[in-house]
């Protein structure tokens, strides 16, 4: 009985393993790659959330550019653990990537998913694939190190078929940020964002 269960578990894990490999292979895009994003940011100081639209661009495997196009232009470049934010007025600010854990999570996910690099992904995260119906899927990343966990509790990559459409980052302090990606971002109008987030980012959206 126990042995049967173990065998079944092993088989299931192996099946999931190969499914993850297949999925990662399908999602992989050689650098340079880029995708549109639509993001909602909230703050106690703001009367309404900020809706940011722009492009995430990966010029090579180790860097990521987050270019905001509206409601203002801003360009954030991550390279070698360093972040540079450049503004329209020409001012720029630099800080270390570890001060922006959310951004680090973004970079990690992109690196792994677009690069199709599973071993890189598994070095820092425990990876779990949930298959959904009609080709939908969800990759859940949980940081391995407790230090990282304090900043990022988990990352969810959600999509359908070959298309990564939503990135959910669970911050260590309980905050959740959601970002629409790819065609989902392009097709969604700011006014319909809530509905689109609910549709693409899963049921647990409040």
């Amino acid at each position, binding site marked *: 009985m126990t042995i049967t269960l173990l065998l079944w578990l092993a088989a299931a894990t192996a099946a999931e393993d190969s499914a993850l490999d297949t999925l990662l292979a399908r999602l992989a895009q050689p650098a340079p790659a880029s995708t549109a994003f639509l993001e909602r940011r909230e703050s106690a*100081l703001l009367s309404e959330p900020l809706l940011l639209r722009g492009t995430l661009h990966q010029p090579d495997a180790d860097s990521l550019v*987050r270019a905001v196009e509206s409601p203002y232009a801003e360009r954030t470049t991550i390279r*070698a*653990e*360093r972040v540079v*934010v450049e503004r329209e007025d020409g001012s720029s*600010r630099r800080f270390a990537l570890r001060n922006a854990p959310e951004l680090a999570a973004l970079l990690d996910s992109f690196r792994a998913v677009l690069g199709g690099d599973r071993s890189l992904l598994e070095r820092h995260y425990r990876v779990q694939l949930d298959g959904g119906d009609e080709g939908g899927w969800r990759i859940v990343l949980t940081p391995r190190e407790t230090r990282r966990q304090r900043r990022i509790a988990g990352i969810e990559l959600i999509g359908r078929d070959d298309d990564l459409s939503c990135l959910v980052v669970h911050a260590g302090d309980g905050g959740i940020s959601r970002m629409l990606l790819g065609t989902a971002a392009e097709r969604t109008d700011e006014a319909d964002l809530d509905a689109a987030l609910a549709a693409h980012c899963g049921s647990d959206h409040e």
Partner: protein
Amino acid sequence: MNAPARALLALLWALLLLGMALLVGSRLQVSGDLRLFMPAPQTADQRLLLGSLGEGPGARLWLVALTGAAPEVLADHSLALRDGLRERPEFSRVMNGEQGLEDFDETLLPYRYLLSPTFDDATLDGDYLRTQLRARVQDLGSPAAALVEPWLARDPTLELLRLAELWQPPQEPERAFGVWFGRDRNEALLLLETTAAGFDPLGQQQALKVLNDVFADSAEDVQVKLEVSGPGAFSVLMRERTQHEATRLGIVAGAVLLMLLTLAYRSLRLPLLGALPLATAALAGMAAVAALFGSVHGITLAFGVTLIGVALDYPVHLFSHHRPQLAAWTTVRDIWPTLAAGAVSTCLAYLSFLASGVEGLTQLAVFALVGLLAAALCTRFMLPALLPAAQRDLAQARLPLRLDDMLQAWRLPLFVPILLAALASVWLLLSPRPLWDDNLANLTPVPKELLDRDRELRAALGATDVRHVLVLEAADGETLLQRCEALLPALDALVDAGAVAAFEPPCRYLPSQRTQRTRQARLPDTATLAASLHAASDGLPFREGAFDPFLRDVENARAATPLSLADIEHSALASRLAALLPQGTQAPTALIGLAEVGDAAALRGFAASQGEDLHLLDMKSASEALAAAYRERVLLALLLMLAIMAAALLAFLRRPRRVLRVLLPVLLSALLVAGLLHALGVAFNLFHVVALILASGLGLDYALFFERAGAEPAERRRTLHGIVVCALSTALVFGLLASSTIPVLRAIGLTVAVGVAVNFLLAALIARSAPDAART
């Protein structure tokens, strides 16, 4: 006494010493503060100098360089190092160029508008706020939102960030990957400020240990190298090197000594017994200093142990005079008058140090005095009980016999050494080279390559100069800060003119109360500010009332009592200001730190043109003046020493002629050794003086024993045996020290080794009585 009883007694003694060592050890607070060995400061500048040797703007700074990897990797290590050190109590500031709000001191938050010069030119109005608020919207939308969001409600203009920038070092190095780098980007630079004062070696050592641990934690790649520079770090480094080398040489010297004594007495037991009085002396000296002064200074300990090295000679004399069929007690009674004469007159001579008015020397005198008396008394009253019966009479041994014959045949007219000594004196007086090394830094010398590297890093980091500082004095603290502010435009002009690269005035961190009041008056009242804020937020997505904390803060700032020095005592600024506003000066004094002084003359001229209250302090010349004053005291003490010694010897020997025969070789030797060392290119410092005193003390003993032996051949040979063993062992031990790479050890080693050799020769020539009828 039979053998087992003797062994038991020796064991008891050793145990007693061990107990004493534990007791003394617990009271021992070894400090390496060289200032204890400086005379009391006479002028205001000297007071500042002694203060700043440990606490000045430069003395607590560590310059740190990371090298050996690609810039990105180095930057990562720089960030990790700052992360790891920031919270540590050992460091009051950890700077690597990374700017952040995270370590801003919250107690200063309400005062930010009084401390920052932002609104001296700009006005906190609607236009200003609008620009700022727009930028804040983007901040909240940026991935770095988490960094600024907690502060925004209180500080939407990010005034804190501006203060943080203002408090960066006066002149910043190049930045790459967000952190400081050297010019060609192959070294990441950090500036650390220790909580411990620069002269506090234990505090500095602890800080260095923390730094190394944190670095080891973060540095997975072994190729990244950590370099630490700065006065405090050097003191730790030099201390460790000196200790390491002294230990190494000490072990070798101990082995050589043991071998020599074993050979000389054909016994392994005697050398071990001989160590007992010496150990007793060291412990008694330490205990006495600890009891009288509370702590034992590290240098006292080092010098003290050197000075009581003569204590090893006491048992040697006893061993050499010991012979079969004679009780050890009889032998010791025989030589006691001579031994006591040497010990007592040396001890009395050390009393002269008490008159020097230098605490370190006073401690040293107590240490040596108590130590030598203890050693002499041990040799007289305890050692004979442990001494086994002698196996042979050393007067019959081959070597003393031959040597004695040689010395008997050695004839040199007395005028030769006198003439040589006279020549040496003339040479010392007329030599074009300076006799003394007045550079205090040379007392704890740092290798030149480290100093060069320090200068390089200091320039790269724009850290304040350790040599020059502008000193401003005023009647009270407020006037001081106002004067400091008034000097700022002129100081800026000096930077433009290239006289100095940057300056660090205390009023940059703490403006005068007058300036703070002016800034208060420029802040809008709540109603006006609320209206401006409302207009500025128009069209921006901020929640109504989001910035109420900001309105309250500005209102508080308007009403606050301006900050004074006392208010910031516990804030992050305190350590910064403590260095620039030294305490304990007669008049309130401000130091204006200078970075990369290019034209000291221009600075001096500037200071002179500004009035009586400002002058340029050159630490180097101030310290040289101090050292010169100090030297005079030491030389006076030496003269006094000589007089006391002569009087003591007269009391013991009763006849002036005998006193002359004992003192003459010692005096001539001192002159000859000084001349010889000068000829070798040695510039004298405290270490040479102490070493020369030791050599003279040893020489006095040689002369006394030679003089005592008289003409009876057997006694003469036993005496000769004892003195040769003494001189040879001392010369060997100190000769080893002379081979050291550490200048301090080399100075002591060379002086004592040469001194012992010359003293032995002259004592043998002058104090020995053998063929003197023919000669004198």
